[in-house]
């Protein structure tokens, strides 16, 4: 069974990881990640759960303090599509070994070309909304435009490199400075890309489909968010991740980073927008990027920190005790390769059972606690996945104690599930060690005779 999986899973994992477009999408998100974490920092500061905090800050910095404090959110979260789209195009062009900076610039221009430069505005005291021109609609520059930006980045870069690789470019005679030549090289492909997007926009405007944002939202974003944001979607993802790790492959990098990140990011930002508009509003999504990184992988994928704690305090075999000491430090920061390869969980039928079972039970417990309103949903801030548990649960839910409580409950669930398996495995190891020592001492005895 394991041999079979290894034989077929390894190449598939490799394919997913090496797929140029998926890789570039991941790189684009990686480009935006630090900015969004910085934006989250300002969001968290603006919403510290300290009594009278609001009054204190207003007194100190004036009534507008929260608006001013969250300026960086507008320049990070709210423009993620611009950054991610540019990043996707840049990295994809790099992979095709064509000029990445030009591809990024063309992709950005195409994205803005696909976006109507207007917004709806309802003046105070009226009911009617007016179309206001001459603006970039910020709502489409954030997560709402994410899939549009990514798709346009891929399409525009594909056209760009196709044109260049077909040598449909204006080549400059020798003696022209290379920089000048380069700017002309981008001219024809840029012209073709821009014209292509322009034609699509004009055609769509003539129909009831309105614009590219509307179409992509309808056929891609909505269904993907529905699947990726559902309990079933998350359950399948978690099963796949745990099976990959059980084979010794980096499940998170393959399933989350390469496939699900855009959807989970968009879901996260939906929560963030609702949260910012009204701090006490019911948030739309349970499942989002922080739901997975903070609550499903507390102490490492499979919540292996529970196993490590059991090794540390309950193990009798030397090997398990030693591993417990070694793995506890990294586990506190949610790094569990020592646990996975050291125990090992990899290819170990006995330990694979709790390793897969634990996150599934934890998913159900967490999902329904949030669904029933017992636990606060992640409010859309992104914190580094290496943040230790309890701190992470507190921050990811926007400073709610229930975020810590659910992590304690999940840890308890994990301890209970891992316990019998760990005991069994530890006993095996203990007997092996004892047997080994016996043979050794018998040998010593023989020597002395």
């Amino acid at each position, binding site marked *: 069974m394991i041999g079979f999986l290894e034989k077929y899973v*390894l*190449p598939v*994992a*490799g394919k997913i*990881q*090496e797929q140029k477009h998926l890789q570039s999408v991941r*790189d684009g998100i*990686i480009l935006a990640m630090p900015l969004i974490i910085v934006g989250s920092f300002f969001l968290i500061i603006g919403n510290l759960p300290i009594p009278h905090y609001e009054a204190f800050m207003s007194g100190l910095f004036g009534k507008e303090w929260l608006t001013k404090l969250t300026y960086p959110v507008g320049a990070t979260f709210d423009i993620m599509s611009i950054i991610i789209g540019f990043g996707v195009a840049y990295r994809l062009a790099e992979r095709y070994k064509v000029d990445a900076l030009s591809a990024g610039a063309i992709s950005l221009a195409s994205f803005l070309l696909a976006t109507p430069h207007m917004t709806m505005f309802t003046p105070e005291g009226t009911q009617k909304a007016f179309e206001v021109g001459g603006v970039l609609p910020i709502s489409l520059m954030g997560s709402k435009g994410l899939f549009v930006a990514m798709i346009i980045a891929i399409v525009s870069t594909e056209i760009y490199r196709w044109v260049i690789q077909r040598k449909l470019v204006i080549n400059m005679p020798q003696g022209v400075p290379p920089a000048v030549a380069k700017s002309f090289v981008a001219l024809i492909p840029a012209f073709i890309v821009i014209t292509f997007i322009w034609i699509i926009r004009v055609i769509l405007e003539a129909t009831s489909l309105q614009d590219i944002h509307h179409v992509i939202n309808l056929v891609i974003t909505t269904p993907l968010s529905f699947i990726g944001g559902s309990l079933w979607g998350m359950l399948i993802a978690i099963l796949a991740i745990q099976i990959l*790790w059980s084979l*010794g*492959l*980096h499940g*998170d*990098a*393959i399933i989350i*980073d390469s496939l699900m990140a855009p959807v989970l990011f968009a879901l996260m930002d939906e929560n963030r927008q609702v949260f910012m508009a009204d701090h006490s509003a019911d948030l739309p999504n349970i499942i989002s990027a922080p739901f997975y990184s903070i609550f499903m992988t507390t102490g490492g994928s499979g919540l292996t920190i529970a196993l490590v704690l059991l090794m540390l305090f309950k193990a009798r075999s030397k090997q398990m005790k*030693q*591993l417990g000491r*070694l793995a506890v430090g*990294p586990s506190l*920061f949610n*790094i569990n*390769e*020592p*646990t*996975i*390869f*050291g*125990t*090992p969980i*990899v290819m170990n039928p006995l330990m694979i059972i709790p390793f897969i079972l634990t996150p599934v039970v934890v998913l159900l417990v967490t999902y329904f606690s949030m669904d029933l309103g017992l636990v606060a949903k992640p409010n859309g801030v992104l914190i580094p996945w*290496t943040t230790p548990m309890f701190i992470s649960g507190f921050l990811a839910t926007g400073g709610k104690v229930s975020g810590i409580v659910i992590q304690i409950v999940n840890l308890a669930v994990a301890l209970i599930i891992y316990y019998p398996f760990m005991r069994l495995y530890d006993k095996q190891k203990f007997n092996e060690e004892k047997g080994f020592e016996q043979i050794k001492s018998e040998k010593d005895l023989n020597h002395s005779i």
Partner: protein
Amino acid sequence: MNILLVCAAGMSTSLLVTKMRQAAEEDGVIATIEAVSLDEVKNHIDEADVLLLGPQVRYKLAQLKAEAGEKGIPVDVISPADYGMVNGKNVLDFALGFQK
């Protein structure tokens, strides 16, 4: 000798790097040992004399072998057991085995 370790985020390999440096110091081996993430590896590959992958990213072996192979840099996967137990000494010896 420049030993470059790579895993998904460069986190767990950095743990191993610390242990390998200790082992190198004890054995009096002069080696530069660094850990990078998969995304960064192409920027550092030229400086490396040997490139070692964490077992969890071994699906990248073929691709990295192709890239590093052009430059004559050996690429291999670290043994899962040594990786799990963060056995710096064994991995260091493994890396030194590639020295020409």
